[in-house]
């Protein structure tokens, strides 16, 4: 991002703080009674219910990126991993919502896999568009989801929550934004059919499912159809990455939560000519990166806490 250099006239301290308020990296979510919340890595953790179910979301590690916005993305991913290891309440598992690598190169997948071995919990992945460049995600799925059938989407149940991992980065060649495609949507409808409406549902995917800024591809074209299958549930939480900042939106029973990156921030929607790495002073980088903790406490709203890496 050339437009948001530290010396940019608009990028004074206040401007930076404003950006920081918007940005986030890894998130730790707490699902309480079906409603998650997020924690930033630099902040104090909110008290979470002792009997709740807690998991963590990290996103957009961009291993292989080494330009000015963050010359050492290995170190910041490692910081996120360390932060997960030190959470007062160990999470039950971890979600990675994509862009594990920057250029889909074999050595980037190698490095990422090696670093992520430092996470003790199971990690469930969905790919970002940076993970599927030039090979439709072949390397990504071989590495991070070898048992999945073609397509790469899946669901599982844990802690009383139904988790759905969805892939919305393989339609970019025909759509102008993210998309699920007919086959995946058909699968989703069947997958949700047997569930009672009181089951908390967490959907995790890479690109936002609501149109934050379609001009930059920050949208999923056929998300409305997916949401039509989800709306009967009392608590739906959509966790995604892609835009490298924390943005939340509530729409009826559906809460949308985009997460921090562990690598670099991006500008707010529409600020500047294009999305991309946003440079901040090096000593402030970790304030705009983070993880998310989600607590799910039965019969209460899920609590989401976004935690910066600072």
């Amino acid at each position: 991002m050339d437009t948001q250099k530290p010396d940019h006239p608009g990028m004074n301290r206040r401007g930076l703080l404003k950006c920081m308020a918007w940005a986030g990296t890894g998130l730790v979510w707490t699902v309480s009674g079906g409603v998650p919340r997020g924690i930033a890595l630099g902040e104090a953790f909110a008290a979470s219910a002792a009997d709740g179910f807690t998991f963590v979301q990290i996103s957009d590690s961009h291993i292989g990126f080494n330009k000015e916005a963050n010359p050492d993305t290995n170190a910041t991913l490692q910081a996120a991993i360390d932060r997960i290891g030190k959470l007062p309440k160990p999470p039950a598992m971890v979600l990675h919502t994509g862009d594990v690598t920057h250029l889909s190169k074999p050595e980037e997948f190698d490095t990422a896999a090696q670093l992520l071995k430092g996470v003790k919990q199971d990690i469930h992945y969905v790919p970002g568009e940076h993970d599927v460049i030039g090979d439709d995600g072949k390397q990504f799925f071989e590495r991070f989801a070898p048992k999945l059938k073609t397509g790469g989407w899946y669901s599982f149940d844990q802690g009383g929550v139904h988790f759905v991992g969805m892939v919305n980065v393989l339609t970019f060649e025909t759509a102008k934004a993210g998309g699920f495609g007919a086959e995946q949507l058909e699968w989703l409808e069947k997958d949700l059919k047997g569930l009672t409406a009181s089951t908390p549902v967490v959907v995790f995917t890479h690109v936002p499912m609501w149109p934050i800024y379609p001009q930059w591809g920050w949208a999923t074209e056929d998300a409305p159809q997916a949401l039509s299958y989800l709306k009967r549930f009392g608590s739906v939480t959509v966790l995604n990455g892609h835009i490298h900042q924390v943005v939340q939106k509530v729409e009826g029973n559906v809460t949308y939560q985009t997460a921090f990156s562990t690598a670099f921030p991006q500008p707010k929607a529409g600020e500047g000519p294009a999305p991309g790495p946003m440079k901040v002073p090096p000593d402030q980088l970790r304030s705009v990166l983070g993880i998310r903790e989600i607590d799910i406490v039965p019969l209460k709203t899920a609590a989401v806490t976004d935690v910066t890496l600072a």
Partner: protein
Amino acid sequence: MRSFVARRALAAAAGVLLALGAAGAFAEQQATQQQPAAQQPAPQQVAATNEAEISIQSFQFVPAILTVKAGTAVTWINRDEEPHNVVSPDRVFRSKAIDGGEKFTTVFDKPGTYNYICAVHPHMRGKIVVE
């Protein structure tokens, strides 16, 4: 020789006009990008040699529409820091990631119109017209 060149240029220009006519939707998409008019790339360019170049800059293909003769080697040069790639929806050509400062070259042997996008940033669209 001179008239040959002129004739060829005329033919190429006609081809571009046709391409633009067929690309109404494309032009609309470009218009939604909220770019100042001064920064819009020239919408067309006629390449007369066997090599042609497309610059990728500020998340745009410049020129967005390129007309070449069959057999031309087209090179994309990424001048952004952000990686891009180029892929035609029907997979006639597809690059790996093109990082900032890197290039990708492919040769267009068969006449036709080839739409393509950057699969990393699908709002980025371009077109090659091969005569």
